[in-house]
């Protein structure tokens, strides 16, 4: 199971992205981002259980601003 999460710039993009991924069959949910706060401040992430590469590409294709990816253990 992939433990990475996709960091997005706002809660609005997080929900839009989650709904989009769910409509495409992904199991997706939102978490508050952890990790280095000085870079992006308090952001939101989308956790997908599978195929995070494809999920990220889908988000980008739908103009959802992706800030990067972060492993679950990285916080």
């Amino acid at each position, binding site marked *: 199971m992939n433990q990475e999460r996709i960091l997005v*710039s*706002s*809660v*609005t*993009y*997080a*929900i*839009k992205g989650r*709904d989009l991924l769910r409509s495409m069959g992904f199991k997706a949910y*939102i*978490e*508050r981002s952890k990790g280095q*706060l*000085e*870079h*992006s*401040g*308090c*952001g*939101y992430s989308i956790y997908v259980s599978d195929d995070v590469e494809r999920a990220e590409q889908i988000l980008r294709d739908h*103009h959802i*601003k992706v800030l990067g990816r972060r492993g679950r253990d990285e916080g």
Partner: protein
Amino acid sequence: MIYFDNAATSSPKPKEVKEAVAGALQRLSANPGRSGHELSIAASDAVYQCRAALADMFRFPAPERIVFTLNCTHSINTVLKGLRLKNCKIVTSSLEHNAVMRPLEKLKKNGCTIAVAEVFFDDPEATVRSFARLIDDNTRLVICTHASNVCGVVLPIEQIGRLCKDRGVLFAVDAAQSAGVIPIDCSAVPIDFLCIPGHKGLYGPMGTGVLFCKSDLPDTLTEGGTGNFSASFVQPEDYPERFESGTVNLPGIVGLKAGVDFVQKKGVERIHQYEMQLLQTTYRGLKQTRGVTLYTPYPDTERYVPVLCFNVAGLHSSQTAELLNKAGYALRAGLHCAPTAHRRMGTLSYGAVRMSPSIFNHPKEIYSFLQSVKRIAKSAS
């Protein structure tokens, strides 16, 4: 009390809206877009679902560019101040509310000139021509009402929007009286900024407004906490958070979503047909009442929203409204915050009485209202 003041705010609110507001306070009382706990995520979700419902209703492609505001006036101010307008020409109509006219007046201090296009009640093509004549190379923005809050006449925004697009001018629409009342299709009409209230034709709670931003606004009206990019003192660029600093009105937004669902379920066109039947019955009855003056041609369903104005001979508009209040009818008299529209109708000095029904009114109420007006007109003569 029989309520005919729906142009000010719709009343009563649907049962679903009241339940949604109460439910939000009971079950979603957390700050959306701030925390990571389940309750905050659920609140954020509820806010987003309202954006999605609005996007669907107004056929707007990007829910994230739908900004929640306090009311339609707040939406209009966000546009007029956010565009950083200086030393340019702005074109508006002769039927505007002070929500548009007062911010425009202030923009004169920035060197802006305001040109007013005449609206022709029975000739939309002539209205478009009057806008076309005023747009020149120095014009940056056209802003106009979609439907008058005084006389109910609908402006041809589709043609005005195309005209603006052809001339490279931004187009903002004040849809205070038309949102939820007549269909607005943002995918078909070239509107850069659509400003709407949540509490009128969408039957949401007071304190809710919406701004649809198809184009960019370079500046913000308010800066502050948005729940993202918190390490920076610079206001984030992302919509809608850029324009929603501070905690949003969660119960209001959840109530607005219920209002949108209510209108969608009934159907905008069906509601409009019904309300126009009530209005047209009123118009015909008032037309036959001796001593009553009306100010528009017969309000056909294609070119009017359910709003009309009248006066009774020998009475100030406020006296007529007071007598109607005593008889059990809620109507608004005066200038309705729209002196330009009253100047256009010739009622600037004494105002008019405005009647605006909703889906919750019944034909029987119209007949009893007409009898009351008849009695008032007879005793005033």
